């Protein structure tokens, strides 16, 4: 039984795919209770009488992360649980209230989606033969009610073009006739409500669901890792996997394999796994594992942090270790990177909310993370030879990165800030230990960030082996023929801005224009072309010989800038707010979107072209016809300065090349306009 999709509708619906490829729905009656613990049950005897009479409350014992508790099982909804909370003035501790029921059912039964029931969840192989169809729609759903073009790729490719109602009706027909298991569709979550409105109006049946039913997921904006994100509302079809290829982070990073693995590990339908963040996925995975192990999941966290002095907090909560790099260019450098360092520390040092006060017991977090860490090691090893493991590896990387962050999240079901602090404390010791070890073996440590060291010396294989022996953690090595650590404005080395040529001839780039998401394509392409030349050279001396060719790219790009397509100069940013107290370009872009009738929400990505930076005049990407040449020149100069630094001989003073040396073309001959004033 291969579970393709799950849902809860007065019982659990399992959409199972057999070996012949036919998908059938199995409905299982299921009404699990939530659990209630009261410190003083006698004080609430009247409420308990009602719960017993109306909701089948029965005394029981259940196991939490920390201990066994006496309490009651109650067959009721979340609304009832919230009423109990209020009635008891939040004395009641509640468990298993907000666990997804289909997920809970599968965890209790030991089954999971996207895997054979006889196979292990923790193997990197995914055996499936799903009928897939990819729907590409070039129109923008925010500006077009119905698409006028679509390309549908299944066994063969069909192109639809014409009036919106005809294209959408034909698209419905194609989906119905192909009957796919998986639909990969651009902007699916934005299109589907529009398609449904069209279907209702014209008496058509929207064919994306296998039984005509859809689950509604509302839109929301939220903070994640210091930035505002936005999730579109979604209509989720039953019995079929629908992935929004533009919005799904998991699909973008891990592809279909990543989505299916996320679903298998978390026990969620692939439709949900594709729409959730890695943080929600690792949290769901922990919930699945807790239910499977008979541990109840708290509704609200009760283990609040104890009061501590600010000095104690500062001493305890320092984050990861950094060694500031000396800016410059360095040859023959090895990057030593600990694989999944924080999760590995959790596993190795048995760090879990319940083990901090009870060192002897086996921790929940280490127990559930150990198989995921092992799986990541396996996919990381395999992806070098087989590309199909790369998506799963990336998905696991993200899930494991966020599992550490969740230990410090105030609402995490199985988090505790002291665990977060203990993990970073161990990581600092390990990085310093590794640095000492490297230096004692004659290596020079150039730079270090949290779980990564850059060293010069040899033999690095011996160092790698010794690190494994001393720290008990696995570290991978990447050799750079040369690497450039860039300076900050004050001349000190930046922690996270560097680029270099790897041993295999590829470039590794961090923190500069070519890597940033908001860089206009025109500038990104310019920097990438520079790197293509620079990566031909294996030595710093060789690099110096290509300086003029690289600079030539900059000069040409500057000269051709006035003739550039305005869309290639679009800046794409995720907005954190929709109201701005000061005038700024981002605020102007939000207003420009509104002026075009497109509503924006915090966390949404917008794409705009600067028409006049001084006057804060901005156009949405689709309507841009002119752009502010001096503004874009300044962006190009910044991008060039990062590259020019490599030709400065590695000293502190880079070879800053100013644009006034260059002959600028006549703006009058160009379609672009130079703002006046």
């Amino acid at each position: 039984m291969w579970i393709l999709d799950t849902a809860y509708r007065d019982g659990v619906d399992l959409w199972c795919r057999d070996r012949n490829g036919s998908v059938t729905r199995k409905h299982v009656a299921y009404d699990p209770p939530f659990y209630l613990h009261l410190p003083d049950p006698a004080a609430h005897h009247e409420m308990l009488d009602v719960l017993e009479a109306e909701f089948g409350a029965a005394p029981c014992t259940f196991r939490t992360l920390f201990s066994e508790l006496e309490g009651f099982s109650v067959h009721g909804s979340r609304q009832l649980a919230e009423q109990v909370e209020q009635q008891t003035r939040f004395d009641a501790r509640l468990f298993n209230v907000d666990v997804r029921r289909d997920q809970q059912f599968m965890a209790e039964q030991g089954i999971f989606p996207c895997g054979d029931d006889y196979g292990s969840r923790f193997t990197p192989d995914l055996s499936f033969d799903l009928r897939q169809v990819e729907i590409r729609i070039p129109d923008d759903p925010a500006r077009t009610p119905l698409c006028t073009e679509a390309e549908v790729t299944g066994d063969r490719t069909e192109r639809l073009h014409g009036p919106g109602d005809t294209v959408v009706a034909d698209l419905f027909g194609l989906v119905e006739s192909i009957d796919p298991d998986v639909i990969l569709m651009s902007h699916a979550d934005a299109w589907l409500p529009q398609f449904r409105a069209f279907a209702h109006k014209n008496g058509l049946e929207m064919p994306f669901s296998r039984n005509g039913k859809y689950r509604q997921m509302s839109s929301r904006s939220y903070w994640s890792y210091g930035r505002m994100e936005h999730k579109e509302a979604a209509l989720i079809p039953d019995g079929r996997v629908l992935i929004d290829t533009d919005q799904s982070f998991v699909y973008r990073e891990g592809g279909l394999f990543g989505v299916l693995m996320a679903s298998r590990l978390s026990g969620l339908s692939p439709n949900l796994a594709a729409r959730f963040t890695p943080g929600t996925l690792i949290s769901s995975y922990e919930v699945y594992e807790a239910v499977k192990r008979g541990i109840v999941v708290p509704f609200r966290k009760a283990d609040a942090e104890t009061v501590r002095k600010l000095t104690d907090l500062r001493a305890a909560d320092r984050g990861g270790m950094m060694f500031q790099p000396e800016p410059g260019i360095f040859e023959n450098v090895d990057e030593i990177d600990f694989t999944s360092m924080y999760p590995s520390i959790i596993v190795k040092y048995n760090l879990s909310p319940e083990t901090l006060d009870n060192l002897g017991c086996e921790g929940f977090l280490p127990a559930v993370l150990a198989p995921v860490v092992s799986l990541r090691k396996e996919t990381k090893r395999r992806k070098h030879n087989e590309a199909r493991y790369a998506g799963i590896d990336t998905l696991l990387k993200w899930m494991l990165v966020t599992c550490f962050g969740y230990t410090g999240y105030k609402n995490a079901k199985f988090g505790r800030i002291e665990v977060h602090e203990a993990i970073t404390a161990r990581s600092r010791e390990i990085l310093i230990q590794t640095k000492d070890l490297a230096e004692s073996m004659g290596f020079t440590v150039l730079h270090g960030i949290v779980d990564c060291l850059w060293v010069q010396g040899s033999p690095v294989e011996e160092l790698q082996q010794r690190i494994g022996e001393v720290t008990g953690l696995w570290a991978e090595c990447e050799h750079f023929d040369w690497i450039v650590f860039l300076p900050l404005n004050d001349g000190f080395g930046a922690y996270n801005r560097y680029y270099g040529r790897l041993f295999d001839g590829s470039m590794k780039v961090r923190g500069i224009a070519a890597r940033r998401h908001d860089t206009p394509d025109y500038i990104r392409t310019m920097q990438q072309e520079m790197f293509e030349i620079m990566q031909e050279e294996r030595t710093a001396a060789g690099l110096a010989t290509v300086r003029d060719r690289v600079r030539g790219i900059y000069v040409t790009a500057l000269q051709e800038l006035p003739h550039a397509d305005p869309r290639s100069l679009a800046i794409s940013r995720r907005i954190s707010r929709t109201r701005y107290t000061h005038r700024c370009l981002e605020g102007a872009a939000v207003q420009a979107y509104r002026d075009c009738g497109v509503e924006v929400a915090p966390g949404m990505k917008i794409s705009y072209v600067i028409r006049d930076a001084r006057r804060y005049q901005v156009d949405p990407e689709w309507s841009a016809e002119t752009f502010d040449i001096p503004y874009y020149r300044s962006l190009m100069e910044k991008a060039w300065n990062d590259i020019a630094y490599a030709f400065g001989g590695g000293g502190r003073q880079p070879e800053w090349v100013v644009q006034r040396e260059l002959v600028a073309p006549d703006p009058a001959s160009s379609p672009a306009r130079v703002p006046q004033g």
Partner: protein
Amino acid sequence: MGRSFLSVRLGVRSLAERWERVTKRLDRDNRAPAKRLTGLAKNHSSEAFFGCDNPLEAMVFSALLEIRRNQDPEDDDVDP
């Protein structure tokens, strides 16, 4: 994730900016050594944050370390 309060590293940056403002107000002869001192104070702030709870402590440690490093080794033999 975790909490948000001024770390030693951010504290060093903020103090260094203050020292730089002071530097600009010094007379011309003292500006260069004061600028150099601020640089020395920032030099080891990343490593110092591991042990120091106070940004000022980290900066003073870093500056003294650099000054000591740049001293002539023969100074060690001078009888105080």
